[in-house]
């Protein structure tokens, strides 16, 4: 067992004027994740510590925190990879509800703005078959777990919370590229705006922090190409 030092940002908007940092010591071994450490702290030392989690296996996407300033899934990040005091803070660019819990409402609103579901006005009951090649077009972008790490990493979302952001644009691409979908036109109107694909300046940190290696930056750049095509086509429409 090794002793690890954690410095956790605590904040209760009902009582505190500003966030404060609190030091804790936890013991763990080489299998202890940041989430394990936080839960053992909560259970054994400080029941007032608030955090969000569910699956513990990088599927639900609810345990995102900043670890030494980098957005990480707590359950997929291990104490063994850090030296010295480990700083834990709530996800950047979101409003803090309490301690490590942030308000994800703006993120969810952006996701729903791009209509993240199959739109198909053909009213036939037959199954929509798909070839492996058609699946391969969008499959990479379909693995998003909505953890919001890419929003905490994206400096453009930090500057402009209206920016649709990496996950929403990736999700738009995921449906636009799906052969069973024909809702692209209505999604393009969101992507075509200054707060759509064009809010991105290709910093690329979204792809660096994505715990599912989705490469949102690539999806956003594809969306830019689509939006540029849409722009040109629109010039010829009267």
């Amino acid at each position, binding site marked *: 067992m090794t002793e690890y030092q954690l410095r956790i940002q605590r904040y209760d908007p009902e009582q505190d004027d500003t966030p404060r940092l609190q030091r804790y010591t936890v013991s763990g071994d080489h299998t202890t994740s940041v989430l394990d450490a936080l839960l053992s702290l909560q259970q054994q030392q400080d029941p007032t510590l608030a955090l969000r989690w569910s699956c513990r296996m990088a599927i639900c996407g609810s345990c995102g925190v900043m670890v030494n300033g980098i957005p990480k899934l707590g359950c997929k990040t291990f104490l063994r990879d850090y030296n010295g005091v480990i700083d834990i803070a709530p996800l950047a660019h979101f409003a803090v509800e309490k301690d490590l819990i942030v308000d994800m409402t703006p993120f969810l609103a952006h996701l729903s*703005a791009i209509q993240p579901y199959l739109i198909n006005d053909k009213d036939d009951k037959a199954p929509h078959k798909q070839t492996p090649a058609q699946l391969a077009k969008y499959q990479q972008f379909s693995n998003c777990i909505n953890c919001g790490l890419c929003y905490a990493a994206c*400096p453009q979302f930090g*500057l402009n919370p209206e920016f649709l952001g990496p996950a929403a644009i990736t999700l738009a691409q995921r449906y636009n590229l799906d052969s069973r979908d024909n809702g692209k036109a209505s999604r393009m*109107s*969101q992507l*075509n*705006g*200054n*707060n*759509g694909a*064009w809010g991105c*300046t290709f910093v690329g940190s979204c792809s660096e922090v994505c715990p599912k290696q989705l490469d949102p930056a690539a999806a956003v750049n594809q969306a*830019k190409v689509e*939006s*540029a095509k849409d*722009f*040109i086509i*629109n010039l010829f429409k009267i």
Partner: protein
Amino acid sequence: MKTPKRSDEPIWWALFSAGGVCFAVLLPALMLVLGILWPLGLVSPPWLSYAGVSALLHTAYGVPALLVTAAVICLPLFHAAHRIHHGLHDLQCGYRQASKLLCYGLALLLSLLALALVLAI
């Protein structure tokens, strides 16, 4: 959900992309030859004389010269302007419209100047 206004960014992004390609492909070689090797006297191609260059400028009514100027000067100018404009946004200086006008305006002005100089020779 209201429909957002269409961005004019595709225009600037297209110029930026085209400029980036020209920048990456043409400028390093040009800088090496015209900026380093030639001044050091390591190469002295015969066309790099007043008569040679002026003959090149007037080939085919000067159309190739204008195209080369666009590829080597104008497009890279728009590429640089785009970067500066977005860099200013990242640094949170300058109002969007003002920095846009300044950056792309300057690129346009210098591009026209370059093309005019080529035509004037």
